[in-house]
Every structure is written in structure tokens, then in C-alpha cells.
């Protein structure tokens, strides 16, 4: 199952590294990353594979949100289906 991780926050050194390390700890594999910096705000979207994830997806959503707070970032994990359903026929 794929999920989309969105990360938004003030740009600084090491955001991608920290987010990826956290995801790796739960055995979440990163498939694709796109990122941009708009007016000093870092915006990253990652497609990840969560089939091997060591905890249930709902818990991963909470864990990443919590980890984001510690890093001063907003991190959202959502199943990819919601975007596919809305934007693809």
C-alpha cells in the first residue's frame, strides 16, 4: 500500500534526512520525493510504500505528526487512494 507524506515548515539543514530516518525506523520505503522552497517555507511530498511498516498505518500517521512537532514541521501521512480517487477517473 502506498501513502503520501507531506512535510511543510521553515527551511533548515537536514529536514529530508530527519524525516527519512524516522520513516526508515518504521520500515517505510521512500519511492519518490519532490520538494520545493517557497518564500522560505520548505514543502516536500513523498510517495512511500507502507506495506512493510512495523506499526498500523493509523499509528504511523500519529507518530509522524508527533515527530514533526518536535522538528517544528507539519507532517501528514495519508493513503494515496484519497488523491487518486479525487483526481483520476
Amino acid at each position, binding site marked *: 500500500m502506498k501513502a*503520501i507524506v*507531506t512535510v511543510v515548515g521553515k527551511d533548515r539543514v537536514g529536514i529530508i534526512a530527519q524525516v527519512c530516518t524516522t520513516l526508515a525506523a518504521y520500515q517505510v520505503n521512500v519511492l*519518490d520525493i*519532490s520538494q*520545493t522552497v517557497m518564500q522560505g517555507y520548505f*514543502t516536500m*511530498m513523498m*510517495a512511500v510504500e507502507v506495506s512493510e511498516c512495523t506499526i*498500523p*498505518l*493509523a499509528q504511523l*500517521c*500519529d507518530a509522524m505528526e508527533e515527530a514533526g512537532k518536535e522538528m517544528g514541521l507539519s507532517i*501528514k*501521512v*495519508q*493513503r*494515496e*487512494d*484519497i*488523491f*487518486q*480517487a*479525487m*483526481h483520476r477517473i
Partner: protein
Amino acid sequence: MLNAKDIMQTQDMIANQHLDIRTITMGISLLDCADPNMDRCCEKIYRKITERAKDLVKVGEAIEKEFGIPIVNKRISVTPIALVAAACQGDDYVPIAKTLDAAAKECGVNFIGGFSALVQKGATESDWKLIRSIPGAMAATERVCASVNVGSTKAGINMDAVAEMGRILKKTAEATAQNDCMGCAKVVVFANAVEDNPFMAGAFHGVGEPECVLNVGVSGPGVVYHALQSVKGQPFDVVAETIKKTAFRVTRMGQLVGVEASRRLGVPFGIVDLSLAPTPAVGDSVARILEEMGLEVCGTHGTTAALALLNDAVKKGGVMASNHVGGLSGAFIPVSEDEGMIAAAERGTLTITKLEAMTCVCSVGLDMIAVPGDTSAATISAIIADEAAIGMVNSKTTAVRIIPALGKNVGDRVEMGGLLGSAPVMPLHTESSEEFIARGGRIPAPLQSLKN
């Protein structure tokens, strides 16, 4: 492959435009709970509901988290209790209402619908018992919703039931007077009621439905409003197209969530109700959509046309997004639950007569309207009759959910809190309809051809 713009758009709709799944409602048949002994009947009902719906809230919350979309309400609808209780000895169905309330509480749902009777052509003994139990049931319970279907296109209008419902609504207001007459916010009088409606207060699980089913109600007035802001001044063709596209997206969410929830609960998926259901929150209003089309205040001339376009476009956009569409599907116009409607009513632009005209083209009817506390039962019945006539002749669902605000008058407000909001007390005609309602009997079903 998904692109960043699509992802951001979805997140923006959820975070800033109030996109949500309004309700996932589990319909449960209680036909097998019938029993001559009232206590045993209640016991069977409690057991069946708490068994079937035990995971509803848990599953709803997990899906919310995984998809990142709020599911505002998890609810239950049951077989009309007048059918389930028909075999019971005793004249009072309040114990059953209390059982439903307890079961709803145990399952963690905020409303349970189905304290209902279908009397469009005539009422059984049991139907009358249920109707007369409504005031007591509303006073004794917190989460139970009642509905009575008094008319249909095929059967006409049962005017005896219409007359009785005027009195019942007054009694319900009196029985819940200390609670701002809140009981009346949970009683709906229908014409052409549908069997698969997931929205409260009018939800019940019809007899044509399976044992257990999951229906979903979507929402998204804020999303439509936001989309229309980008087509200011453009012709109505563009307006309709924009609404259709938005409704499609919103409905796809409902379809996705509904299918996922029914899979996890092991219950067949019923329908998506393509409704635009407002909340009292700023930015989640149907009235503001109508105003965005170019009306200074909702309720002024042009409002009915604007609503007709909106209602139709929502359905057209939504139909392709779901494999089964049903329920009430359209734009709701509840006054107290819509920030823009409240403002328009307080200003005096939105009147009850205009609302009545709007119900000819909206999804349901006169909804969440507070009227002066000294309004007579006959006047309330006459309002119900008017609304039922609109539904009967136009082959659509109409309903009346009206709150006689005891001790209050025009200019006062009724506060219900939460999603039910607050309603300004609206003026009614004071001339009598007493003799009209006293006639009783049945208004015959209308001709279905020679339509002009």
C-alpha cells in the same frame, strides 16, 4: 502519477474549505426483534444494535486517520420502530426509545434514527402509538431521532396524521422546554421519505433494505463556494460546470470512504448521498454559495433559480463519482445549521414563504426553522400540509423540521449548539388554518400525467 498540485488541492479542501465526510450511517434491520413482551423486545433490540455496530466508531476513526479526512459523524439507522413494536403489548413506546438511546451510547454514535412511522396512506394502531410516544421519547432520550412520513406521490397526504403531527410537535416542544425545545430538532415530518437516507434526523432503515448496510453522506459547501469564487461574473454554463466538477471530487471521497468502511465492517455498501450539508461554521454555508452567484443576500429574488441550478449540478457531478447514489442527494437548506441562512433570516430577507419556494428545488424541505412559541398546532399542521403537497406533486422528498420556541417571539434566538446551531425565531402568518386542518381525511394522490 500524482502531481504536487493535486495533492495540495486536496489538502487545501480539507484544511481550509471544510471538506469532510459528513456521516457514515449503519442501517440495521430490527424486524427480527419483534416480541409480544416489551422488555424482551427491548433486550433483542439492544443486543442486535450493539453487536452489529460495535466497531462502527473504531473503524470510522481509523479511516479518518489513514486518509486524513474527517468523518464528522458515525450514526445508526434502524427499521421504523412502529413496525418492530407492532406485536408488543402496551401503549407506550418510550421504553424502546430509551433502549435505542442506550445502544447508541454504548456504540459511541451521536444519533440513532428510526423512531419512525410510515403513515402516508393510513396509520396502524402501532403507528399511532409511536406517534403519540414521540414527545415522551424526545424528552427521555438524548440521541434518538424520530420521523413520520405523512404523504407520498403515490398515496396522497394523510391529513389526520398531519393534524396529529402539529399537536405532537407542540407537545414535544413543551416536553423539552427546559432544553430550548431541542426535542423538535430531532423530529422530521416527511413526504416521500427515502429508505436509505444517512442524514439525521430523518434517517431510518427501510424495509426494502438488506439486513445491515452502510450509507455515506458527503458534504462540502465550502469547497463549492471556493470554486465559484474563481469564476466570478461568468455565465451560468460555467457556474454549473464548476459545481459539477467540484461535486464529482467531493463524492469520490464519499465513495472511497464508504467502500473502505463497509469492507472493514463486513457490511454491504449501500449508497452515497450526494448532499451539500452546511454547518454553522463560517465558510461552510449553502447560503453563501447562492450569494456568490450574485445575490446580495440569500432569500432575495433569484434565490430559487440559483438553488435550482446548484441542486441539479451537485447531482449531475456526483452521479458519475459513485456506483450507487441515493438518500436525499441535493443541497440542504437548514436555517439554524447554516451561518449564511441565519444572517439572511435575521436581516429579514429570508422569510418562511421564500424558504417554502426554495424547497420546491432543494433536496428536502423546511429545515431547522424556529417559529414563535405561541404558534397554534393547526398552523404547524398547515405548514406541514403545504410542504407535503410540494413533495407529493413534484415527486420529491420534502420535510418539515420546525421548532416552536416556547416563550420566545420574533427577534429571539433558539440555541441548540454543535452542528444544530442556533435559529432566529421567524415570523409566520397569524391568520388561522384551524378549520382547514380540522377536516382530516386524505388528500388524494395527484395525477401523474398532463403535467404543466
